[in-house]
Every structure is written in structure tokens, then in C-alpha cells.
């Protein structure tokens, strides 16, 4: 074979070999665990928004005492005509039902949150059977919870936790997850919400999960205090305000709309920058207490 021809043939053959080698060496995703029978209380480490957005999640569960981002708080069978379809409905058709499937009282029950405990920093996500499991008749879905913080940064990235969230709101370490305010107030004037912070950090007031759209009936500070008082009492589980505690009605303005947020704070020397929650706790802190290992994902919010 002439040298020139040999060079051409060798060049082409090596290029083709290189192409085939690269095309066949892809790292396909692993199948993971089955999605037909999800279990309550399992924890998983989902690190990218695409994993959290997927219709099904077969990633293997991890121990809840190790770093994880989601925890299953509800498992149920998909109801209604959607479940009758032989081919799994698409992502939007299933996700649009998430609010009705996952947002009943089961989340508060799982967290041991009372009606006046703020769960503002939590987010839920639902997962359904994989197409293969669906075609074999599986219709069970799971609702997972993640903690996205109350610091007001607006980031959707969840925190990696190293403890279970089951019953957390009855424990002292729930202060790390509760919504508090570094509010600025002037005597005689309405307070406004300042920087948000978890209650485990120094703060001026703690949210009692009672928010109202501002109208004329709430024009005066006294009216706002009166509006908030019953909710603060319910939060504290008392009939009258105890000594050293006060109602803090805060105004929040978002996109031009004002909202009254009822909060509770300390009076006197403890009023400035207190730490911890005022909620009556009925459980001991977990051993070791829950820790937040930072948000997953990169980039500034």
C-alpha cells in the first residue's frame, strides 16, 4: 500500500475508532430503588433542582442522621381519574395536583407543628412512580419536605440537614427553623418587618403564623395589636399575656401590597435581640440536636 494511502487510512480509522469509543463510554444514570412502594420517614440527598423537579425519584434513601435534603412525610395512593390512565401522565399534569395531594394536615402532623407555629421556611415536593412502575400498576406517591430557610434571601436551594424533621416543632432545636424578625419599631408607630432570621439567631420578634391583608380596619396600631392578640395567646397557649411578653404587629410590604404579620416579642431588658423560641415546647431536644449544614448547590442567591 502506498505511504500516502496508508496515512489516509490510518488517520480515518483512528478518527472513527475515537468517535465510537467516546460515544459508547457514557455514564448512564443508575436505576436506583423501586418507586412503587415509598416509605414514610425516609431521607434522601437531592442536590440539584433537576432531581427535585423529576416526576419520579428512585435515589436510594440515606440515614436521616447523615446529610440529606428531603424527608418523606406522606405516602398515599393517587386518587381520581388520573390514576386510571395506563400511561403515566406528564410532569405538569401530576405536579398541578401536588397542592391537593400534599398540603393537607399531614405536614403539620409530621412536624408536630401547632396551627400557630410558622412553617414558612419549609417547601414540599411530590414524587410519583416511574413510567415502568406505573405501567405495572403502581400508583403510590410520596410527599417530601425540605427546609429552604427563613433568612429572606429568596433562595430556593434547600439546606442539607443532619437530623430528622419528624416532631421537630415540639423540640428546642426548632428555633433554627422558625421565622423571626429583626424588626425596627418606633414608639407609637407601626412596626415594619426588617431582615428575617431564624429564631436561633438574635431577633426582636417571632412569627405566630397569622398574616392579614391590610385594610382600613387595621389602620391604627391599637387595632393591629388587638387583631394579633388572640393569635399570640394561642401561640403561647395562655389566656392572658404573661409578664415580659408583648404583641408585635408588623407591617410587610411586598410588590405594593401591605400585609400585617402578627409576632410576639419580649419586653424590658430581654426585648432587644433575644435568642430562641417563645413557643411552649413539649419534647426534649434531639441528641445530637439538628444542624443545618448549609445550602446545597452553588452561586449566590
Amino acid at each position, binding site marked *: 500500500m502506498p505511504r*500516502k*494511502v496508508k496515512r*489516509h*487510512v490510518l488517520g*480515518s480509522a483512528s*478518527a*472513527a475508532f475515537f*468517535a465510537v469509543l*467516546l*460515544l459508547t*463510554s*457514557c*455514564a*448512564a*444514570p*443508575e*436505576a*436506583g430503588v423501586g*418507586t412503587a412502594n415509598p416509605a414514610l420517614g425516609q431521607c434522601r440527598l*437531592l*442536590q*440539584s*433542582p*433537576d*432531581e427535585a423537579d*423529576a*416526576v*419520579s*425519584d*428512585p*435515589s*436510594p434513601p440515606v440515614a436521616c442522621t447523615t446529610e440529606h435534603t428531603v424527608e418523606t412525610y406522606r405516602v398515599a395512593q393517587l386518587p381520581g*381519574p388520573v390514576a386510571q*390512565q395506563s400511561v403515566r*401522565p*406528564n410532569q*405538569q*399534569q401530576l405536579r*398541578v395536583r401536588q397542592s391537593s395531594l400534599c398540603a393537607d394536615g399531614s405536614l403539620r402532623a409530621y412536624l408536630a407543628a401547632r396551627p400557630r407555629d410558622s412553617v414558612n421556611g419549609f417547601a414540599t415536593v411530590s414524587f410519583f412512580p*416511574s*413510567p415502568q412502575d406505573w405501567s405495572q400498576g403502581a400508583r403510590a406517591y410520596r410527599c417530601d419536605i425540605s427546609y429552604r430557610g427563613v433568612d429572606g434571601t*429568596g*433562595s*430556593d*436551594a*434547600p439546606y442539607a440537614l443532619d437530623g430528622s424533621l419528624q416532631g421537630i416543632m415540639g423540640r428546642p432545636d426548632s428555633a433554627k427553623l422558625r421565622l423571626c424578625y429583626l424588626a425596627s419599631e418606633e414608639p407609637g408607630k407601626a412596626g415594619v418587618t426588617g431582615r428575617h432570621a431564624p429564631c436561633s439567631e438574635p431577633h426582636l420578634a417571632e412569627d405566630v403564623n397569622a398574616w392579614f391583608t391590610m385594610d382600613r380596619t387595621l389602620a391604627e396600631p391599637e387595632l393591629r395589636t388587638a387583631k394579633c392578640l388572640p393569635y399570640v395567646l394561642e401561640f403561647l397557649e395562655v389566656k392572658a399575656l404573661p409578664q415580659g411578653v408583648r404583641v408585635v404587629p408588623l407591617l410587610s410590604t411586598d410588590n405594593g401590597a401591605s400585609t400585617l404579620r402578627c409576632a410576639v416579642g419580649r419586653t424590658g431588658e430581654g426585648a432587644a435581640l433575644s435568642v430562641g423560641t417563645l413557643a411552649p415546647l413539649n419534647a426534649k431536644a434531639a441528641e445530637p440536636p439538628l444542624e443545618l449544614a448549609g445550602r446545597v*448547590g*452553588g*452561586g*449566590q*442567591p
Partner: protein
Amino acid sequence: MSIVEETRTSNGIRTRRRAQQSRLRRITTGLSRTFGPGTLRPAGFTAVAPLMGFLSALFMVVRLFVPGPVGMADQGDGQRLLCSLGVMNVRPWDYENFTRFIHPQWVPHQYYGEGCAAGGPLGTDVSSQWLLLWPAKWLTGFLVAPGLDTRVLGAVCCLAFGLLITALMAVLPGRRNFRILIAGLVTVVSADGVFADFFIAPYSESGAFLGALALVVALLHYWNGRGLRPLAVLWVLLAASFTIGTAPQAASWLPVVVLALFWTPAAGRDDGGSPRPARGRLRRFALPLTASLLLGAFTVGVLATQSPRTTELTTYNAVFAEMLPHSPTPEDDLRWLGADPALASATGSTVVSANSAVYSPRYQEFRDTVSPGKIAAFYLTHPERLIGMAERGIEGVLTPELGYLGSYPQDSGHQPSEKDRRFPPVLFFFTALRAFPVLYLALNLAVILVGLALASRHGSAVGRVAVLLTLASWAQFWAVMLSGGQAEIYKDLIVTGYMSALTVPLFFASACLLGSRARTAGPGGDQSSQPSSRSRRRRLNSDVTS
């Protein structure tokens, strides 16, 4: 004014005009001496080819990395392409912050099931862009840390670009300076931020750009008729496979490449210019036929590997984002497609819109009934609708800057969504054309006419490539408009824009070769070594240079 004065004045004007014409001729002669093609024969591989390739790659590197890196922010497609490489983007979870900056770092990650892509037959969208991503991943692990850095991908793309410019220099006809000029123009077009920024991005567009350039090189080589013909066909096949493999819409290259393969160098005539006997023709077409069949099978394979979810989204956008919003009777259109007219309430939506049709109980019927083939049939029976679509598409091509995707890293000090305009010649050219879109059509027509004239008179490979690239850009244009349409028109048409921009250097080269022949070729000037009278005419002997 007297007659004498008038005569003097007109004589003066004539003299000045002659002097001006003489000056102009001297300038054009000077330019011809320096940059004129001189000959239609390719110079082959000379030392200047790798030097030009190196300088082009260096220019691209400097343009992309100095003073800081620029790229194209991801809008979500990146993960679908890269997750199968086992990497995860280090990025904010919030979509707005995600798209406002580039996030070049991807770290190793194990995906499970549908966590990676939309769960197609192979679990992910398949793309020949992996041929660039895998070396980038390997190099990232070797140079930085395990994972993939799209800045390293940018360097790999610059290297590939440099190699292609080297190859282009080897297959271009003409003298050294002419080839440098054409390769330089190709580099200038490719270095515009609207295209080059895709080198540092998790998209398949960079592969599509490089693939188009590789096809230009391979087809020039094929039509130059030098070296072994089966190998020339093999290079065309490899370049076409890579380009078609980048994305489903690149399948539009198939008919163009098939046409190119059958447009054989000698057009079925023997050396004396007489038609070849049938047996010779059959033998001549056997190789292109085999290659076309192989390429057809490959294209079908590529389309079959796309996930059903991708097909569903494409169909949805073609109907609800493109067809219905520009229809006088959306209900009738839906009826024609076999879908429920009540779905017209979702006109203008995408699947994630609040008024998306996916929430309707009638959507399942739509999904089962409407297919890309049915949409194509609709437009075949409603050709008047293609006019408006073409207008929207041309505006899309001439708006190549994706303003909603940032160009800079988050920590670079640049504003969110700020665009890179370090080197914007194509952006300026296209923006100017947008004021008179008819000029875009005129440019395409001019490229085809000049290319055809050059190809028919001299059998020039450059003329043929100019024609084929223009046809390919239109094939890609319609593939985009009929499949995705308005939903993400500017990004989807960027490859069409690149091909259109590439036709400008080819148009220039064709015009030079054609003009040079008309002006400079004279009797006895042929120095071609080819024996036939037809091919004797191929080599242009420039009396300007001799």
C-alpha cells in the same frame, strides 16, 4: 458659458474621471495582487495552514478569555445534555439567578432514574456534542479537579476550531494571501460573541457550529477531487454524522448532504467532456449512494434516540406557541389536526404556562393524535401560513443576541444578564439587515447565484459549498420553525444564523474567483496539469500577477 469654456470643462471632468478610474484600477490591481485568488487549484497542506489554524485558535482563546471568561448562560437544556456524563452544575437553584450568569463548574454526581433528563429510551438526549464534552471532562479532571469545567470545553472548542481552519486552508483554492483572507473572514464570523460564547456553554450549539465548518471543509475536499475518493466520502460522512448528531433539528442536513454527495466532481462526464457511459456513471454513484444510505440510517437512529418527552414538548410548542397564535381560526386548525377545538384557550402557552393545555382532560387526546408529521402535513395544505412564519423566522435569525442569558460569571463584577460585546461584527451586520429583512433574502439569493455561476463555469468546489451551505441554512430554518417555532426562536435559530453568516466569506471567495476569471484569464494562460479541455480551464492564470 461659451462653447469653448464648456468643452474645456467637460474635458477637465473627463480627465479627472479618467484619473480617478486609473487610481481605482491601481487600487483594485493592488488588492488583486495581494489577495486575488490567482488559481482555482487548492494549495494543499503547506506550512501556512497550521500557522493560520494556530493564530485563529489563539484569536478565539483571547476573545473568550481576556480579560475574563465569557460564555452563554444555561437556561435548563445544559443539564439534559451533560447529566449523562455524571456531572452536576454548581449553580443557584433560583431560575432567574441561574440564567443571568454563566456557571461553568460541573462536579461529579451520581444520578438516578429521571433525575437525569426526561427519561428517554436511553435515559437522556443523545448528542454528538459528547465528542467535545468527553475530552473536556478528561482535561478538567487532569488540569483542575474531577468534573467538567465549560471553560475547558471552550479551550477544546478553540483547539477544534484551529484544526478546522488548518484543514480549511489546505482545501481552499487560490494563492496564500487569498486563502488567509478567507480563513480570516471565517474566523471573524465565528469569533462574534453571538456564536463564540456558545463555546463556553453546556449546549450542543458549539458542536453544530464546528460541525457545519467541518462539513464545509469535507465537502471542499470531496469536490476538489484530490486524494482517495472513498476517503473523501468518508470524511464527508464523519463530518455530516457529527453535525446531524448534535441535535434533532440538525437532521435537516441530511437532504443537503445527500445532494452534495451526488453532485459529483466531474458531473458524470469523461475527461473529454462527453457524457460517461452508463456503467461508469453507476460506478460513480455507487459510493455516494452507499454513503447516503448510511447517513440516512444514522439520522433515523439519532431521531429515534430522542426522548418521547422531547418530542412531546416540540409538538406542543409547534402547535400552541407557533401555529395557533398566528392563526385567524385556531379552533379550525385544532379540528384539522384532530384535536379538540376547546384547547384553543391554551393558544400562546407553553407547557409550563398557567393556561397550558396539559391541564385539560382533552390534552391526552391531543398527545395521542397530533404528531410532527401531522403538523408538516398541515403546513403543506396551508402554504399561505408559511409566509408569516418565514417573516418571523427571518427576524429571529437577524436577532442573534440572546438577551435573556448572561455572558459573565457571577463573581466577575458584571451586571446580571449583561451581554458580551467584545467582538460583534455579525451582530452589527445582522442588526443592520433587520431594518431591511428583504436584504437577507437578497444576500441568500446572491450567494446561490454567484455560487452556481462559479460552480457551473469552473466546477469550483467553493461555489458548490456556498450554494449547499445556503440551502442547508434554509433547511435548518424550516426544521426549527416547523418543530419548535416561536417558543425559543432566537436560540433555536442561532445555528441557522451561523450558517448564514458563514456564507458571507464563501460569497466573497466565490465572487473573487468568478471576477478573477472574468478579468484575468486569457488565451494560453491555463497552467493546469489536468488533461481535459474542461479542467484545463479550471486553473486561472492571472495576468495581473504575471
